[in-house]
């Protein structure tokens, strides 16, 4: 009797498999951060076409391997959610195909995921198959797609150097910005949005970044340098406010008083205009900002000592 049941089940499974078509579409370079897979909907699309005419209940079995065949993760089918596929079929995304709470990761991949949330860079293959809920028998053909994890890192502002004090005369017409490129280089060119904010008196740099209207917002493609012709009316301190007549130590740079302060950052976008924020804490592709100052003290007073401290004078 058991044999008969087994044979009937097998025939049913094969018949179902023949009548359930699936298609796995996957980005060839998904984000390294796995929770971003569900945000970027194009990362995984798994299409189920049900030609049986009946409503089917299935599980999605996924197996993630490295390109040399080592198992990275598999679905724990005992905890997987049962999917109901009607005659109209079903389209699934990453959160259904590789749900992080159901996938069981192995070895160093588990360590990496727990520590960083990322898969290590390299070549991978994802294989997906539908199985029956009760006994996990195949209900569709196995679909596999290869992909590469690049693990991009956002650009880092480099020039002006963090907390650099620039002579007013040198910055009167232009200020040159440089930054590191996205690493490794993506297949399609990225767009760097250079954003510069003035730090007003009684503001901290982060306040300025989070609340001010930027003085400069410009998009740059293909290079990591921008020469800003700012057209700002920079001026020395009025003669009687020069620092030697002030009660403040001349080695102090006080934002909004003897220096103009600025905070600048880059927001990176992919070729479709979406924030390029692989693993970026806020998901907005914004890099850690830098600060610089334009010295309003007249020469040669501004050269006598290195500024010992920067004061944001927020009160």
């Amino acid at each position, binding site marked *: 009797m058991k044999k008969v049941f087994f044979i009937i089940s097998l025939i049913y499974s094969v018949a179902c498999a023949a009548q359930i078509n699936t298609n796995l579409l996957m980005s060839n370079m998904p984000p390294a951060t796995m929770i971003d897979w569900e945000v970027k909907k194009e990362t995984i699309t798994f299409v189920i076409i049900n030609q049986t005419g009946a409503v089917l209940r299935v599980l999605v079995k996924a197996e993630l391997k490295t390109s040399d065949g080592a198992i990275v993760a598999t679905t724990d089918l005992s905890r997987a959610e049962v999917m109901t596929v009607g005659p109209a079929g079903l389209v699934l995304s990453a959160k259904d195909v590789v749900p992080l709470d159901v996938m069981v990761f192995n070895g160093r991949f588990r360590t990496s995921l*727990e520590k960083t949330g990322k898969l290590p860079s390299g070549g991978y293959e994802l294989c997906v198959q539908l199985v029956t809920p009760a006994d996990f028998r195949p209900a569709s053909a196995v679909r596999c797609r290869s992909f590469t994890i690049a*693990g991009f890192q956002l650009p880092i502002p480099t020039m002006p150097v963090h907390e650099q004090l620039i002579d007013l005369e040198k910055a009167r017409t232009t200020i040159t910005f440089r930054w590191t490129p996205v690493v490794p280089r993506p297949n399609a060119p990225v767009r760097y949005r250079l954003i510069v904010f003035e730090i007003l008196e009684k503001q901290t740099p982060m*306040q300025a970044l989070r*609340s001010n209207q930027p003085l400069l917002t410009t998009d740059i493609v293909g290079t990591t340098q921008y020469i800003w*012709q700012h057209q700002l009316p920079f001026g020395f301190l009025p003669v009687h406010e020069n620092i030697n007549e002030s009660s403040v130590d001349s080695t102090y740079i006080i934002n909004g008083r003897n220096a103009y302060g600025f905070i600048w950052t880059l927001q990176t976008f992919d070729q479709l205009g979406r924030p390029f924020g692989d693993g970026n804490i806020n998901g*907005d592709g914004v890099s850690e900002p830098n600060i610089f100052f334009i010295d309003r003290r007249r020469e040669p007073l501004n050269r006598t000592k*290195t500024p010992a401290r920067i004061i944001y004078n927020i009160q």
Partner: protein
Amino acid sequence: MRGLLIKLTSILLVGSFAILLSKVEAQVTPVAGKRNGYRINTSGTMGVSYEHYGLITNPDGWSGFTPRKPWNQVRFNFSPRMQFGENFSLPFNINFATTPTSSLGPYSGIRKQSFGQFITNPMNSFGLNPKYKWAELQLGTQYLNYSDLSTGDIGVFGGGFDLRPGTFLFKFFTGLSQQGINFFTGPPQTNGAYQRNHWMASVGKAKEGKYELALNFVKGRDDINSVDSVPANIKPQEGFTMSIVGKGYFNDGWYFSAEGARSIYTKDLLLPKDSSRVSFKPFIEGRTSTVRDYAADASIGKKSRNFDIGAKLKFIGAGFQTPGYPFMMPDRLDYTLNTRFNAWKDSTGNYKMNVVASVGQRVNNVSKTTQRAKQFIGNINWFTQFDEHWNLNVSFNNFGFQAPGGLNPFGIKNVSNDFGISPSYTWNNEKMVHLFTLTYNYSNYDERDVITGNITSNNTHMALLSYIPTFLLKEIAPDFSIMYFLNKLPAFRMTLITLSSGLSWSALKKKMNLRGQLQYTYSKTNAFKNNNNLIVSASSDWRISERVTWNVFLSSNYFRYGNEIIPNNANYLESNVRTGLQYRFGN
């Protein structure tokens, strides 16, 4: 509970404000008052300023230049500090503006704010810090810096305390850094954000200028139910960071500081709990999106009048994230060595030479989850005062960035070299001091194409001559400069020539400082017709009375393109008017 806290804090702020206003009347006399046996002193400032921005583009409707300030903005500040006797002080820090202008972060694009959003908008601060001896109550907006790896960047609106009995310290603060903001398609688009609650605490022992040892705890958690809609890329998050920090300062100028921190961070609170992920109950419970990692920094060095040396090391693990520094970039190791020294004594015992230098390296992707990239930074600034007439400043800055090719035939290799030399000549007579400065800067930036291996060199030359005469017997101070700037790279050449002159002078027996500036720039790109730019600005600071100052600033920027853009001869006129009154409390 949190709403109640905000209401209580607001009531306390308003109440204190009312008390202060009742005192101000009594404090307008320059001498401190004495009431009920207490000596009351008030210092600090308050004021209001208005700023107008105008932009006219030609042809009408041309969008080649976008406004860079709000059309109208009014800012208020109210920062008095009341001192009651020797032991009790009541400082206020109230700053706010009428028009929200955020373009980055949670408040980006917001135009109409609720009262709660206005109060917690990073543009505005409403803070009150009453202090009695060693006990400080912190109310309203506070920018608290506990340490470099725990919290320090974010303004939080709420309540807490900072107690320092003897050499002990106990700190606690809780509040909101952002209100819930719904996504709005715009224009302008509002990104939206979850309400973020913060808790922070610190326990330790410290003696100012001697040592500090503290344990810090910081937690941030988004309220999932605080908004109706946010974009898919914004996830509710939760983070908990613990750190231990130690600092020591010694009599001979030596110092050290070190901090070690561990973070547990949930990137998406909507994902289910996962017992296999790290937890630290009751502060944070692991979910499938929870990561944990470490960070550390250390510095050691010596500071003295004529010689400083210091070394710094900073490691941020790939999974390290803390709610107190929302833009901190993880997965890196930085180390730098800095020095400053004075040398070459003159006959009066003063040093003629000052050198400041630093060298360091930053390694990105330390976790090896991806390609490792290295960044080298070195710079030196060398100033020498040869005699009473001549001085020379030389600077050099090198920056290199390298990453292996990976999938590309060539690796990334960007190298930047900047060299500057600037001699100055000063001479004077009984009436005037003349200062001539010549500056030359050469900047080279090489970028390698990772597909072809070709290197693009971007070269910049800048020459600047400035003349600053100082009239010893007159109240005027003019300055003049001319600058030539050339930027060249293959098939591109841009030239700029800038003429600039400023004049500042004192009037009304030094009660009024006036300043005017005129600047013209000629610019030309390749064979296109040249562009012209004229900037005019004027400012006045008038001390109307002992306590009241009136500031006015006017500027205008006219830019006219040649034919490098379409439409040809497009131009714009930017204008800016700022005026404000400042009242100074106390003596």
